[in-house]
């Protein structure tokens, strides 16, 4: 009895000591990442399909110009990817203007595309550069089923207020603490939901939860073809909590050569919101992201 108690204590102490060692960020690397020289660009993306698709388009467009590209898809949420851009683990990423601005400055008052672009230029961390934003936009939308919208007469997010206590909200886990998530819904709209269900970022789990009734209100993306396919109602964001989200390449200033800039700006100019809805629909049908990206580039004479 005494013997194994000692063993247990030892193991417990070891566990605590071990975990205490890595005080800082265990994923950070102090050394410069491999392939950080010359024209080679490391393209990263967030952990949802559209970000991966746009990153793929960037990568293929750059490759077509003879630039060496390494891809690091599906890294994670902004809380992970922005530090990765800063420390040089990745060089280039497709970003969404509004969400990026709110991440960098949670007190921002910017709402329209112009305001967001203007504010972003001053808030972007040193060492990083924003290229020209695309007209293509993918906003967070709060979606409800048609039945729910009819039952509670919901048109705008504000309409939820009287019934919020009966509804469960579904979204990605980072929404718990984010301003353009649970925190903003409470401070801007005064919404306090019955519960928040941490699922994925507008992915299959969230959509499935909304359709099968585990959640009644879900965070989806405006370019998600599932909205139309499932007859969902995207509630109007009448108090502009979710600001404009034009797609913009964020790049390490050192890697932003003229060829790179020109190539990516052409991609941004050609990309439209409708293109994204169509391409997202193909991704949802498990078509190869690489093929979709190449076909799009070819159709715009960029491949």
């Amino acid at each position, binding site marked *: 009895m005494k013997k194994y108690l000692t063993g247990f204590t030892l193991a417990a102490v070891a566990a605590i000591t071990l975990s205490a060692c890595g005080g800082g960020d265990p994923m950070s690397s102090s050394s410069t990442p491999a392939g950080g020289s010359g024209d080679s660009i490391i393209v990263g993306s967030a952990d949802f399909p559209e970000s991966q698709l746009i990153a793929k388009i960037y990568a293929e467009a750059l490759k077509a110009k003879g630039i060496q590209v390494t891809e690091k898809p599906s890294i994670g949420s902004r809380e992970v990817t922005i530090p990765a851009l800063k420390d040089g683990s990745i060089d280039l990423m497709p970003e969404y203007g509004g969400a990026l601005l709110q991440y960098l400055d949670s007190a921002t008052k910017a709402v329209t595309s112009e305001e967001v672009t203007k504010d972003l230029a001053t808030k972007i961390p040193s060492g990083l550069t924003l290229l020209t934003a695309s007209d293509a936009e993918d906003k967070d939308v709060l979606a409800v089923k048609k039945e729910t919208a009819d039952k509670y007469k919901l048109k705008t997010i504000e309409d939820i207020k009287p019934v919020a206590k009966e509804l469960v909200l579904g979204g990605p886990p980072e929404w718990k603490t984010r301003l353009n998530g649970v925190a903003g819904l409470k401070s801007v709209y005064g919404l306090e939901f019955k519960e928040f269900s941490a699922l994925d970022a507008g992915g299959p789990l969230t959509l*499935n939860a909304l359709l099968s009734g585990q959640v009644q209100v879900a965070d989806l993306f405006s370019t998600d073809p599932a909205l139309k396919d499932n007859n969902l109602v995207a509630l109007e964001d009448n108090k502009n909590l979710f600001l404009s989200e034009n797609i913009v390449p964020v790049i390490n200033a050192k890697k932003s050569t003229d060829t790179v800039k020109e190539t990516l700006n052409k991609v941004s100019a050609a990309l439209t919101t409708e293109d994204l809805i169509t391409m997202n629909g193909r991704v949802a049908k498990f078509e190869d992201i690489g093929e979709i990206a190449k076909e799009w580039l070819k159709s715009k004479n960029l491949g």
Partner: protein
Amino acid sequence: MNYLFDPRHWTGADSIPTLIGEHLLYSLIALAIAAVIAVPLGIYIGVTGKGVFLIAGLANALRALPSVGLLILLVLLISPAFPSKMGYILPSLIVLVLLAVPPILTNTYAGVRAVDAAAVDAARGMGFRTMKILTDVQLPCSLPLVLSGVRSALLQIISTATIAAYISLGGLGRLLIDGKAQNDYSQMVAGAVLVALLALFFDQLLAFITRRVVSPGLTRRTIKSASAAEAVKTPVTV
């Protein structure tokens, strides 16, 4: 470690005690279901020798199932039928039960098989009926192996129950998943440490229970201490 020692994290909805409670609830329910399935099945296969292929094939194949993948597949299949939390709880429990069945099943089978044939023969010779042999000879003799199967099953369940958080349920996985999404490593470390401590605690608890319930005649340790007690006694009587 700051996360762990911040008093704010010890009360409220997503507090550490609540998460530990949820974690244990999922784990123990899954273990109970797994034991109810695997122990009788293991005994049956061990005693009759029928269906050994189940052990060699099915049980071992189950071990290779990727838990997270299976979980998401089950959520997509099952949750439309249950428009409530049950749509997530059920898939999580199935995954955990599938994880826990193989170690319990194989160990129960091996335990029953390994019982000394002479002991069974002796019992039969003394007029014991088959059922009596099972309950009085075979089961007590195989208990150490059965319990060690339960022990490794519980260890796996406790460490794997973290995936329930992936589909919005509670448990200590919440700290890992939320911590990762929010880039809050102190929260993740807290989750990892707590899962490890919980697993260690229950492993030791089961080790303790094993020592208590297994017949002293089956373990070398108690024989030793018995003979030591005799050795102490001997000089007194002489």
